[in-house]
Structure formats: C-alpha cells, structure tokens
C-alpha cells in the first residue's frame, strides 16, 4: 500500500481554488454563483473522500474480518 499524497494535495488544491473563486465572484457582485461554485467544489471533494472511505472500509473489513 502506497502513501497517496496526490489525493491530499488534490483536495487542498480544490479547496484553495474554490475559496479564491468564491472571493472573486463575491467581489464581482455574483454572490449566487459563488455559492454554487462552493457547493460544486464541496461535492467533488466529497466524492473523492467517499471513494477513499470505501477503500478504508474494505481494508478494515478484510483486516479484522468484520
């Protein structure tokens, strides 16, 4: 099993990108678009994390034969 550093940096990148986009959109008086961008970013990041959680659950299930 390798240490998946790429995923952590990917999540951090999505977070920083979303934060900057929301900031810019709010400065441009597009608050509703900013909220949509924030929601989309959280959903995409959540999908990544969900996949990772699935890996965790299968690992724990095989490890401790739950």
């Amino acid at each position, binding site marked *: *099993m*390798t*240490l*998946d*550093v790429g*995923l*952590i*940096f990917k*999540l*951090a990148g*999505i*977070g*920083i990108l*979303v*934060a900057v986009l*929301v*900031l810019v959109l709010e400065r441009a008086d597009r608050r509703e678009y900013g909220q949509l961008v*924030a929601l989309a*970013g*959280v959903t995409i*990041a*959540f999908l*990544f*994390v969900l996949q*990772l*959680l699935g*890996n*965790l659950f299968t*690992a*724990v*299930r095989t*490890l*401790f*034969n*739950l």
Partner: protein
Amino acid sequence: MQILQIVGVGLAAAVLVVVLRKERPDMALLLSLAAGVVIFLFIVPQVAQVARLLEELTVRAHVKLLFITSILKIIGIAYLSEFAGQVCRDAGQEAIASKIEMAGKIIILALAIPIISAVLDLFMKLVL
C-alpha cells in the same frame, strides 16, 4: 523509513488544513478526514502482520479461534468508531461524536457476549 513518510504527509496535511480552515471550513474537514484515511491505509500491511501473528499464536496455544476473531472484530469496531468520533469532534459536532462512540461500545458489548458466557461456564465448572 515509513515513519518519515507518515510524519511528512501528516505535517503537510496539517499545514494545508490550517490554511483552508479560515476560508472554507468544509474543505478543511474533508482534507483532514482524507489525511487520516490515507495514513491508516499506509499502515494496513503492518497491522495485518500483527493480526496474523496473533492468530498463529492462538493456533499454537490451542486456544479456541472464536476468541481471537472476536477480539480482532472488537479492535476493528473500536478503531472505526473512534475515527468517526474524532472526525465529528473536529467538525464541532460533539453530540454526534458521543453517539457514534456509544454505539460502538454497545456493539462491542454485544460481540463480547460469547466470551463472557464462556468465562461464566468456566466459573460454573470450577465451582461445581
């Protein structure tokens, strides 16, 4: 050296979480959750080695395999509930965290019923 990798990833993830926390706390939570899962997935082979050693010892000592499998199950449930509880506590949801941990404890107690009844049987045999 695996510990160096784990320390490096943990510190990097902590810095990124602190950077994100002010602007987007939701992303920071997802990031810290991902870091925890990644680090656990990295140490899975070692845990498997230890579990295999325990099973081998039980077989050699002629102890019933039921006991060691229940103990392994209990360790797994304890780890998972503790993990989820800590994530909820990080997110500021103290109530959900304590409920998850309570559920874990109750499931562990239910799993331990065969062991407890075996101990009771042994006592009865010794006394009578």
